[in-house]
């Protein structure tokens, strides 16, 4: 079986390699693509070797789901970091910092603080009580069949949302980086991830995550050393030169718009290190913070990692290591982001990817010597390959979590009533992984071009509103019982999903059409406005819902000058093309003066680039108009969002807790009460905890 396995894997890898031939444009220039593919190839080869090695020792259920509970605390710490530092946090946060400065960095803090909840209330009890899944923890004292069904559904929901966001994000990213077609990227990621999970189970997944985390941290440290060393590792010295950079000042001026007119360049630069350029709504941030702090501890793929270590002490060690690695990494993003803003320039970063995702890779290219240098492109290739490994590793962890819920909770626990033989259980686990993997690939391809930003928020919100209240109250509250768990998980999930469906995360055709028309037809001139006094909001509910008669708070507005009309795309293009022909006509006359000739050629290149950018925006606007023609409302039949926060946590998390409590208080469940002593003693002492398999 092993030789066919290798052949199959090899052909999969070759299929992936040959896709280089179909690659279009990306951040990596064509002549350097072979380097990216070489680094990719090496990473794929290493992870395949790991899978081959892991597959030989993965026979039992405990080995498949929990790596035989023989992963050490330090190893598990690295694996948690590998599971958690997704492409969104690796590339996304560095990107946010490069475009918006302080707010991007502030955003990263919650992702680390979330682990305090994991460390203090979740990791050790889960290790002592659980077996393979969240369902096992809940079924300990509650009705096993009912709670396992609800827990599995919630696990699959959370994993699917997160998985889809990762797949779509990953596909787009690989296309932007190296120009491989979206569909091929998704299939490539899917095949590799399936190979790891199906053949190597948790052991292969763990080691792929460790490998990826080590690569990611190493790459980031090298980049930060290169950025920071010229300033003798002085924080004020380094940031001083960031704020003095004209590119940074220009970016802030662009973000502030009219307000920038009365600011000095120094003030503009300093503004980059101050809050408020990106995150405008503090209530939304608190809501997101709640979802992060409580959601991470309810993420099934994170919970599952604690079943892989031999003891509760090792679970504790692993969270401490994970916090050191994850926190250290987020501190590094401050330098990666500001370094990219200063050295590469926000304009260039945003021109490759509007969300700033390319800040890290472009910084690597710059530090290695720039666009045309060998080292610069090697470093870009390396970072691109790490990004790819990141996506595969995170997706593998999620697939394993969803598959365990499907096979262990639903099939073995509910359908077979816990009476499956060990061999059947492993077979079920492999089949379920295959099913989830194929679903992930299909959904990933179907969701091409869709707005998936809300899916990550949704995954965390559901985990925080449904999984965490259930797990937390089962572990710490004597009166908690089956009815409470089921009520809380259903209400928590439905509320979180429902609120996101009517939130600003969804696509509202009217707004898209208005935006597209602005690009195509320009904006009319606005007359000068007189100063406006501050407006107070009518009630707190108005911050959350678009109710009738609501007035939103507005700060006092100074008088503004008349705004000139902005030209539409066609007019802009005509102007640029005229400029281009004038410049080209001048070329012949300048032939005698090499200095002037060079300058004219540079100008021509710049105008050509601007023309390409406007044409791209025009094509997108036309596409949008065609796509949304005749539509006036979102999927939910709304013209504009009714729920005003991007994250539902502020409402759905307290509601989830409340429902578990009410459901438990109004019903009696003898088993839940009888088992309390055992559960509480076991979670605190580790007596009778699942033991590690000896090797």
């Amino acid at each position, binding site marked *: 079986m092993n030789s066919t396995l290798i052949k199959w894997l090899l052909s999969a890898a070759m299929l992936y390699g040959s896709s280089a031939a179909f690659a279009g444009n990306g951040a990596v220039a064509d002549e350097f693509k072979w380097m990216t593919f070489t680094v990719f190839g090496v990473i794929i080869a290493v992870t395949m070797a790991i899978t081959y090695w892991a597959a030989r020792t993965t026979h039992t259920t405990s080995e498949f789901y929990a790596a035989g509970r023989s992963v050490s605390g330090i190893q598990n710490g690295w694996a948690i970091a590998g599971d958690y530092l997704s492409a969104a946090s690796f590339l996304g946060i560095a990107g946010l910092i490069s475009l918006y400065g*302080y707010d991007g960095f502030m955003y990263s803090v*919650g992702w680390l603080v979330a682990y305090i909840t994991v460390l*203090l209330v979740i990791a050790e009890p889960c290790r002592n009580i659980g077996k393979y899944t969240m369902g096992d923890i809940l079924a300990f004292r509650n009705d096993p069949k009912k709670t396992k069904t609800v827990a599995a559904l919630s696990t699959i929901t959370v994993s699917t949302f997160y998985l889809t966001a990762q797949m779509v994000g990953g596909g787009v990213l690989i296309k932007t980086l190296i120009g491989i077609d979206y569909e091929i990227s998704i299939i490539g990621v899917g095949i590799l991830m399936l190979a790891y999970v199906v053949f190597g189970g948790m052991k292969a997944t763990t080691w792929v995550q460790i490998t990826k985390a080590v690569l990611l941290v190493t790459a980031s440290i090298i980049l930060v050393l290169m950025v920071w060393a010229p300033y003798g590792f002085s*924080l*004020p010295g380094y940031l001083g030169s960031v704020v003095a950079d004209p590119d940074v000042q220009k970016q802030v001026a662009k973000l502030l718009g009219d307000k920038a007119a009365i600011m000095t360049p120094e003030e503009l630069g300093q503004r980059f290190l101050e809050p408020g350029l990106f995150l405008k709504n*503090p209530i939304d941030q608190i809501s997101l*913070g709640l979802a992060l702090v409580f959601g991470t501890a309810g993420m099934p793929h994170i919970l599952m990692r604690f079943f892989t270590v031999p003891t509760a002490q090792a679970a504790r060690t692993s969270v401490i290591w994970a916090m050191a690695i994850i926190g250290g990494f987020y501190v590094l993003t401050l330098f990666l982001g500001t370094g990219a803003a200063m050295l590469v320039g926000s304009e260039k970063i945003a021109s490759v990817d509007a969300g700033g995702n390319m800040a890290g890779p472009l910084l690597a290219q710059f530090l290695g010597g720039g666009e045309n240098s060998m080292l610069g492109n090697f470093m870009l290739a390396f970072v691109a390959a790490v990004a790819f490994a990141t996506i595969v590793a995170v997706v593998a962890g999620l697939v394993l979590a969803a598959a365990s819920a499907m096979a262990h909770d639903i099939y073995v626990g509910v359908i077979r009533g816990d009476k499956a033989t060990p061999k059947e259980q492993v077979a079920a686990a492999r089949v379920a992984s295959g099913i989830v993997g194929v679903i992930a690939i299909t959904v990933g391809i179907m969701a091409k071009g869709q707005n998936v930003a809300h899916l990550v928020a949704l995954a965390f919100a559901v985990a925080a509103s449904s999984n965490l209240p259930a797990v937390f109250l089962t572990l710490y509250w004597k009166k908690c019982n089956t009815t409470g768990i089921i009520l809380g998980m259903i209400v928590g999930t439905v509320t979180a999903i429902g609120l996101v469906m009517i939130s600003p995360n969804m696509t509202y055709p009217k707004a898209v059409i208005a935006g597209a028309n602005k690009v195509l037809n320009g904006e009319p001139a606005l007359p000068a406005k007189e100063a406006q006094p501050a407006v107070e909001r009518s009630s707190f509910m108005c911050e959350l819902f678009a109710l009738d008669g609501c007035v939103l708070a507005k700060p006092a507005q100074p008088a503004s000058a008349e705004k000139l009309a902005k030209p539409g795309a066609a007019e802009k293009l005509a102007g640029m093309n005229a400029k281009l022909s004038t410049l080209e006509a001048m070329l012949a006359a300048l032939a005698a003066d090499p200095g002037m000739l060079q300058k004219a050629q540079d100008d021509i290149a710049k105008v050509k680039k601007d023309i390409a950018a406007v044409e791209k925006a025009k094509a997108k606007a036309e596409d949008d108009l065609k796509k949304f023609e005749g539509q006036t409302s979102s999927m939910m039949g709304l013209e504009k969002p009714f729920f005003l926060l991007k994250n539902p946590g502020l409402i759905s998390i307290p509601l989830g807790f409340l429902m578990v409590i009410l459901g438990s208080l109004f019903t009696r469940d003898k088993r839940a009460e009888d088992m309390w002593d055992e559960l509480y003693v*076991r979670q605190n*002492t580790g007596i009778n905890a699942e033991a590690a398999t000896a090797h």
Partner: protein
Amino acid sequence: MSNPNINWAAIDTNPKFQALHRKKTFFLWGLMVFSTIYYFLLPIGAAYYQDLFKTKVWGVVNFGILFALSEFVVAWAIAFVYSKKANAEFDAMAQEIINDLNKGSTR
């Protein structure tokens, strides 16, 4: 799942277990409440105390940046404090309860 040979209720009422439970509850809740409050000071401060956050403290480095960095330090400190306490105290207390159980006296 349940082990008929162990009298869980007896362990639960064991004063040693009760002492462990009290200490742990107090300590964990204290750290949890402190860390949550400290975390939410960041978005609240950044939104409503902008003048403070914009105050330059160390060259161009302002209070806001130092406060954001302090969030990391505080998170690590909590992890360190908890692991010290758990390694030195909670683990030993739990081990004593297990030893008592193995000796057959849970009272």
